């Protein structure tokens, strides 16, 4: 009987301790300013060194100011960033931060610099770490105690093997749709806890036809269905990522032998699963979330349903039950984040803006690249001008308004390319509607959601 890629990679990294307890060796540990300071403090208290600084990579992203100033936003942010800088310099850990102008969203930066690799294990104190599974790695978010464990031992202690799950998407995806529509559609089918305790294998020819960026968007949102791990098999598209020189990977190292090893851990055709979902890409429409959880997602042809039983002052921001998706009025728009903050995302959104030719019809719109490299690539292509001409603010990289623990906060309904529609997520008085970057761009220009297919058709695309 066959096994999955997850199980093969897991087997290579499993350490058996006493009494049936397991640990998992960690290939890459990514840390950032928000979830690491307490872990370093714990090590210090116990007088334990960082075990493998050479496999630890630090990025500042969550609180960084994207507004073009080099000064942190306030003293607490300054202390958070300074604490990470001090811990990195003390323990000889490489840091991509504001001090060297290399800051960015950790899940955008690590793949870009070639640290994310197939067949390895990657952990980070951030639930969207499953993003790296797009490359065929075992990757998951952890709490700060686990960060402490990995810093101290180079391994994840108290490891338990996840359930094996599969999402297979087959068939041609309509040309006006993108990876975000696929994952929102999957979520609309399985809900926000289907994958709890699980590792999700994303497969099928629709997934295989996606770029690495698209696969990252899919794996990124595994946590929104409850799963810690999401991953894809390795193929030619994966190889092509490493054909260009990256900060920590030389294209010359992409040998036939290495490729063979990467592919050798792909999922067996006869692997079995605890549960699986098979989707026909033809059923997928342009999707949007509403409500308060990822259980509330509809196609553009849909209507909102009642959201009941939730206490809180901000219920008034929810549109009335039965509102068609196309009639939700937006106040703000946001393009960025570890879900959709890569070059491909900004190219797609800029294309919509160019075709439309107008300006935003909402209060404000932010375009926040996921990394310095994404920003530079966009600017080399003139995309920044496309956004600013239409009335978007073109910002420096960071997590920005995806979680708004920085100055980038909204007040009202936000059309957003991010990953969570939790109330207050993009500012205390915000209400988020998740969609693809293309949909966000069109929402910004029209003030409401427009069918992308008719839009492209009307422009002869």
């Amino acid at each position, binding site marked *: 009987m066959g096994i999955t890629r997850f199980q093969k990679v897991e087997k290579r990294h499993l350490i058996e301790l006493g009494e049936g307890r397991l640990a998992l060796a960690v290939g890459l540990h990514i840390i950032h300013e928000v979830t690491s300071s307490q872990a370093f403090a714990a090590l210090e208290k116990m007088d334990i060194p960082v075990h493998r600084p050479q496999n630890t990579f630090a990025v500042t992203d969550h609180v960084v100011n994207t507004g073009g100033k080099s000064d942190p936003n306030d003293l607490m942010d300054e202390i958070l960033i300074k604490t990470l800088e001090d811990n990195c310099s003390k323990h000889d850990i490489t840091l991509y931060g504001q001090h060297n102008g290399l800051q960015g969203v950790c899940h955008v930066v690590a793949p870009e610099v070639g640290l994310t690799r197939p067949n390895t294990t990657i952990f980070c104190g951030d639930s969207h770490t499953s993003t790296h599974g797009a490359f065929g790695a075992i990757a998951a978010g952890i709490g700060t105690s686990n960060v402490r464990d990995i810093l101290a031992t180079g391994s994840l202690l108290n490891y338990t093997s996840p359930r094996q799950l599969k999402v297979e998407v087959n068939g041609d995806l309509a040309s006006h749709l993108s990876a975000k529509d696929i994952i929102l559609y999957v979520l609309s089918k399985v809900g926000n806890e289907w994958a709890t305790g699980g590792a999700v294998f994303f497969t099928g020819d629709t997934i295989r036809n996606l770029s690495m960026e698209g696969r990252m968007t899919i794996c990124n949102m595994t946590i929104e269905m*409850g799963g810690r791990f999401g991953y894809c098999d390795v193929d030619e598209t994966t190889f092509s990522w490493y054909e260009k020189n990256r900060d920590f990977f030389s294209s010359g190292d992409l040998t036939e032998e290495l490729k063979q090893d990467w592919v050798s851990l792909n999922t067996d055709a006869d692997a079995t699963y605890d549960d699986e979902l098979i989707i026909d890409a033809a059923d997928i429409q342009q999707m949007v979330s509403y409500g308060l959880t990822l259980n509330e997602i509809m196609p553009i042809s849909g209507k909102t349903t009642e959201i009941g039983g939730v206490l809180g*002052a901000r219920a008034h921001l929810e549109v009335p039950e039965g509102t068609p998706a196309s009639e939700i009025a937006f106040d703000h728009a946001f393009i960025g984040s570890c879900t959709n903050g890569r070059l491909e995302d900004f190219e797609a959104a800029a294309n919509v803006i160019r075709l439309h030719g107008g300006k935003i019809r909402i209060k404000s719109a932010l375009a926040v690249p996921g990394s310095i490299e994404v920003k530079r690539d966009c600017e080399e292509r003139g995309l920044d001008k496309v956004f600013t001409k239409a009335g978007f603010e073109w910002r420096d990289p960071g997590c920005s308004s995806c979680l708004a623990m920085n100055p980038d906060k909204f007040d009202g309904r936000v059309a957003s390319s991010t990953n969570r529609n939790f109330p207050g997520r993009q500012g205390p008085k915000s209400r988020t509607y998740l969609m693809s970057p293309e949909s966000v761009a069109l929402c910004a220009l029209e003030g409401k959601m427009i069918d992308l297919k008719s839009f492209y058709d009307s422009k002869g695309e």
Partner: protein
Amino acid sequence: MNLTGNITRFLESNTDTDVIIPARFLKRTALDGFEQFAFFEKKYDASTVCEPTIEAKDYVFDSVSHNPACPLNHPNCKDATFLLTWENFGCGSSREHAVYALRNFKVIIGSAPEGKSAFADIFRDNCRQNLIWTPVISPEDHTRLKEVLETELENSSVDMVLDVAASTLATKSGSFSCSFDLPEHHRNYLLAGLDAFEKARQEISSHLHKIEDWEGGNAPVLSSSPNASR
């Protein structure tokens, strides 16, 4: 071994860690002091202001106004150390600060409809790391306990007993009792406490050579950055 204390409730399904502690309160670098921000948007009403002040290097409440409709503010639930929750509690962000905010609780009781999850994975594991018990009870027992609390909390606080050896959860008065589930490795860790971390750290040292060379060059090594020239 028994854990005892009085109980409070927060029964919304899909309570995410942003609800347990909003992101803007994650900026402290210390472990303690997060309790005051727990369920901020639920416990306090809209007039409550709490912002970082430069002078204090911390958050300061300018005004506090409790929301009387929030069950966590029930007068008979003061200083509770047991929390009753419902379906998919702790979903979303992996932030352990959510657990730091709940460190006043010794026991967080979960439950969900058949086939659904009581707790999100990462949150439950973070509870274990902070030595908070997360027993899961059946939906039928959850309904019974909810009804018992609705009645009894009208008159006084309700004391609970979690019997570790018997895996049972009961009101001290005996008006309610049920069994609970908890993964074996959680139970062992909770009983061993921080010794479990130290023990695993000692044990793993004999495996460290494996970690060094286990995957034949697949693991990235930052010290040998070939192209980090920019």
